[in-house]
């Protein structure tokens, strides 16, 4: 019996819901969370992965209608290649998070009252995300989107006894709803021209350039806010650190990609037109997000906040690739557009995998040392070798270094950008290289950032006592990280195989696949043509490994003869952990050069006991430039509206009469 991918997807949704239901009982029976709920969660992820793979391999489109929803608008479910790809993404990360959770949530079992919330909302969160990706009409999409936002709100507010977390959760909820409103309005525009809320109806809509631009702007704002594009990103660095670490992994790794899915679905599939003006907007915002994201990440000392800002950077990179795709498609170069599109998709799954891995590592550090501040960490590689190794894999991947996966998607993006010579417009031909230069600098800054993270946290000497005595990391946490590290390696070593696997996505969405990418065999990745550029990923990795083995063997005769000694200390006192470079010291040159982009408050002040205190506060400029003025505007507007509230009943009746008159006049 052949199990259809659609059935598997349904099984995944059902399992996620079941895990949410079962965890309701975990207040009474705390072991339920670890023994039943998380395995269900893991299985849900596995089922989603299988469903996605099945769809991609078969390449078909499966549509069905659920017997739920409104009588004249039942919920439609559609599983095509794009949904299948994102199902794989959700599935892989959920599977790894499910493996990781038992070890992590054990520390929450002391506070039994909150366990149902944790398990329940996690299950609902996964359900929401799966349904968003499977939705075939705006109604189910918005319901699932809302479910996703609300359940993640409760998860962000999980540690609600701290005021900062409450504030972060409120900001998150607020921005999620503003974004949701924008998306809904976008669907409204599409539905009014397409006569219906089903996606099929919206696809048939014939939009003029003006209305299509309105829908595009609404979708861009709505999905961009959820994905975390500058300047609508302020909730990300507040919300992601506040949530428990495995939820941060899900949020940063998966939820942001669901927003990317929404953007692709609405702009590439439903609106269906491409205009170069839109692509310039997307490229501009993507570049700014990428650069600002990584610069802010470099300034952070809180590990999870740093990772959150790094997510802003990577989302910027994904949107740069999407912008390039739109640009080339709108100027009539479908091949290069497909390459850029595949680059965006590849970077989505890469980021999902390595960001979740990094958040899991941060969770492991938090679990064993109760420390999030980089300035207190150090020397953790010795206390947790496996976590250190997997975190290193994550750092190398996110810094886009060969032979891991981050490099492949950056390479593909550069290859697409380098085809700018094909464009007719000279102005565009000079803008695309500038975007590529911004991409290059963000790559280099990302490498600097993750050298800082790994060097300060895992290498060197411990800067505080509780870090020096960190406990062991539980096995399940190591297993979850190991799975993702393996995925990083595979995605980096076999890009041709994976691009072949997701070939159905550009084929269905853009009408043009990327057949030439694997035209020269599984060894060579040739996205445009063999003469233009090729990358032999397995060869590079094999040669690296062989040369390493050779080197170790040639010099191996002395491999045990390494004596230990003191480090160089200029002949003065031996180095103490306090003499090491701190995280803020590492980033100081960059902080100084790019200083104008931040709001830096740095100085030293004398303390009453005669010592001096150095302080450094780096704040996001977006608050002062964007959020506070908008908030002031809203407050002023609402104060004007308050004048309506006079308290007099006759005034209220007067308003009612006036409104009734106006409505009657309008409908006449």
């Amino acid at each position, binding site marked *: 019996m052949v199990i259809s991918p659609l059935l598997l997807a349904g099984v995944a949704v059902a399992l996620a819901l079941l895990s949410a239901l079962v965890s309701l009982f975990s207040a009474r029976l705390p072991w339920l969370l670890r023994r039943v709920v998380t395995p269900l969660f893991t299985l849900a992820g596995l089922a989603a992965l299988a469903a996605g793979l099945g769809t991609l391999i078969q390449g078909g489109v499966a549509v069905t209608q659920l017997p739920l929803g409104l009588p004249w608008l039942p919920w439609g479910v559609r599983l095509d290649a794009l949904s299948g790809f994102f199902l794989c993404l959700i599935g892989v990360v959920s599977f790894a998070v499910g493996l990781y959770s038992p070890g992590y949530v054990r520390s929450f079992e002391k506070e039994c009252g909150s366990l149902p919330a944790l398990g329940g909302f996690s299950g609902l969160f996964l359900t929401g995300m799966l349904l968003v990706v499977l939705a075939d009409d705006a109604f189910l999409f918005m319901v699932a989107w809302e479910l996703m936002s609300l359940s993640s709100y409760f998860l962000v507010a999980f540690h609600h006894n701290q005021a900062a977390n409450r504030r972060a959760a409120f900001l998150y909820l607020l921005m999620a709803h503003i974004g949701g409103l924008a998306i809904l309005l976008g669907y409204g525009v599409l539905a009014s021209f397409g006569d219906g809320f089903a996606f099929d109806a919206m696809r048939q809509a014939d939009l003029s350039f003006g209305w299509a631009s309105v829908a595009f702007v609404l979708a861009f704002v709505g999905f961009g806010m959820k994905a975390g594009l500058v300047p609508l990103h302020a909730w990300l660095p507040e919300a992601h650190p506040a949530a428990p670490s495995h939820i941060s992994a899900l949020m940063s790794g998966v939820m942001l990609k669901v927003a990317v899915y929404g953007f692709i679905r609405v702009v590439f599939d439903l609106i269906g037109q491409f205009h170069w003006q839109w692509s310039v907007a997307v490229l501009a915002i993507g570049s700014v997000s990428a650069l600002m994201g990584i610069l802010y990440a470099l300034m952070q000392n809180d590990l999870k906040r740093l990772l959150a800002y790094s997510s802003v950077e990577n989302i910027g990179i994904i949107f740069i690739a999407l912008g390039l795709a739109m640009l080339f498609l709108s100027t009539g170069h479908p091949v290069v557009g497909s390459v850029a599109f595949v680059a965006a998709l590849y970077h989505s799954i890469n980021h999902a995998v390595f960001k979740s891995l990094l958040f899991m590592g941060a969770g492991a550090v938090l679990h064993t040392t109760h420390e999030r501040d980089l300035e207190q960490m150090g020397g953790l590689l010795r206390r947790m070798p496996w976590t250190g190794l997997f975190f290193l894999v994550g750092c190398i991947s996110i810094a886009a270094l060969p032979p891991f996966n981050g490099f492949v998607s950056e390479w593909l993006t550069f290859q697409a950008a380098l085809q700018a010579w094909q464009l007719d417009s000279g*102005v565009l031909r000079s803008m695309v290289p500038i975007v590529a230069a911004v991409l290059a600098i963000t790559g280099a800054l990302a490498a600097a950032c993750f050298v800082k993270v790994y060097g300060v946290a895992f290498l060197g000497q411990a800067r505080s006592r509780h870090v020096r005595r960190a406990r062991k990391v539980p096995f399940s946490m190591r297993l979850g990280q190991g799975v993702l590290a393996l995925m990083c390696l595979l995605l980096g070593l076999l890009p041709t195989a994976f691009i072949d696997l997701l070939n159905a996505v550009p084929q269905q969405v853009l009408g043009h696949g990327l057949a030439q990418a694997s035209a020269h065999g599984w060894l060579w990745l040739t996205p445009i043509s063999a003469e233009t550029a090729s990358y032999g990923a397995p060869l590079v990795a094999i040669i690296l490994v062989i040369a390493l083995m050779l080197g170790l063997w040639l010099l191996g005769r002395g491999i045990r003869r390494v004596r230990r000694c003191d480090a160089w200390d200029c002949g003065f006192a031996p180095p103490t952990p306090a003499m090491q470079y701190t995280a803020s010291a590492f980033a100081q040159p960059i902080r100084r050069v790019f200083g104008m982009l931040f709001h830096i408050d740095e100085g030293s002040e004398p303390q009453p006991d005669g010592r001096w205190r150095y302080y450094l506060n780096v704040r996001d400029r977006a608050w002062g430039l964007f959020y506070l003025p908008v908030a002031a505007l809203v407050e002023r507007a609402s104060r004007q509206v308050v004048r309506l509230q006079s308290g007099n009943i006759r005034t209220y009746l007067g308003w009612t009469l006036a409104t009734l008159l106006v409505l009657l006049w309008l409908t006449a």
Partner: protein
Amino acid sequence: MSLGELPFLQQLTLVLAAVVLFTSFALLEQARLVAAIHAFAWQGLLVAMVTAIVAASGGYPHLFFSAALTLGLKVLLIPWMLHRLVHRLQLDRHREPLRRPALITMAALALVIFSYWLVLPLVQQELLFTRNIVAVSLAVVLIGLLMMVIRAQAVVQVLGFMSIENGLFLAAVSATGGMPLVVELGVAFDVLVAMVLFGVFFFQISESIDSLDVDRLNSLTERAEEES
């Protein structure tokens, strides 16, 4: 036709035009006054070379005279006069570092792209082989103006003014094979007279407000006088 089919001399003019653009960036960003004067002299030399090559390969003999005039004035006489001026005002080691160099460079690059975009319809027509240089010369003019806006030191402002003139001259040479000789001579002597007047002016300014920072001239406004 592609770049490879052009004769060597004409390829050389393209290279020289590109280096002229680089010298205008150097003028814009150079903090040291004496180095800025040298950059201006190099710019003049390159413009003279372009003129000479256009004269040779395009067959405009009067341009040789223009080239010689440019060489004499822009490369030798005016920089020498400026050197003397700087020496007498004791500004030999004067430095005026830019406050936001990255922003200014980006603005200058945007001006280059903008001039390219402006000149595009012009370039479509079949003009001389050097019509692409019109975009570069317009960029030089705009960057010269930007220089006058950004820099506060009076001598540097003069250099900006002169580089505007360089750009206009280059545009004339590359688009239409030079201006009529009478116009050229008139413009050249106008520039010379302007230089002399600048020299006299600077002494007066320096003695009255004891500096050559043009922002200090704000003290001459009525409001400032009321306040003082």
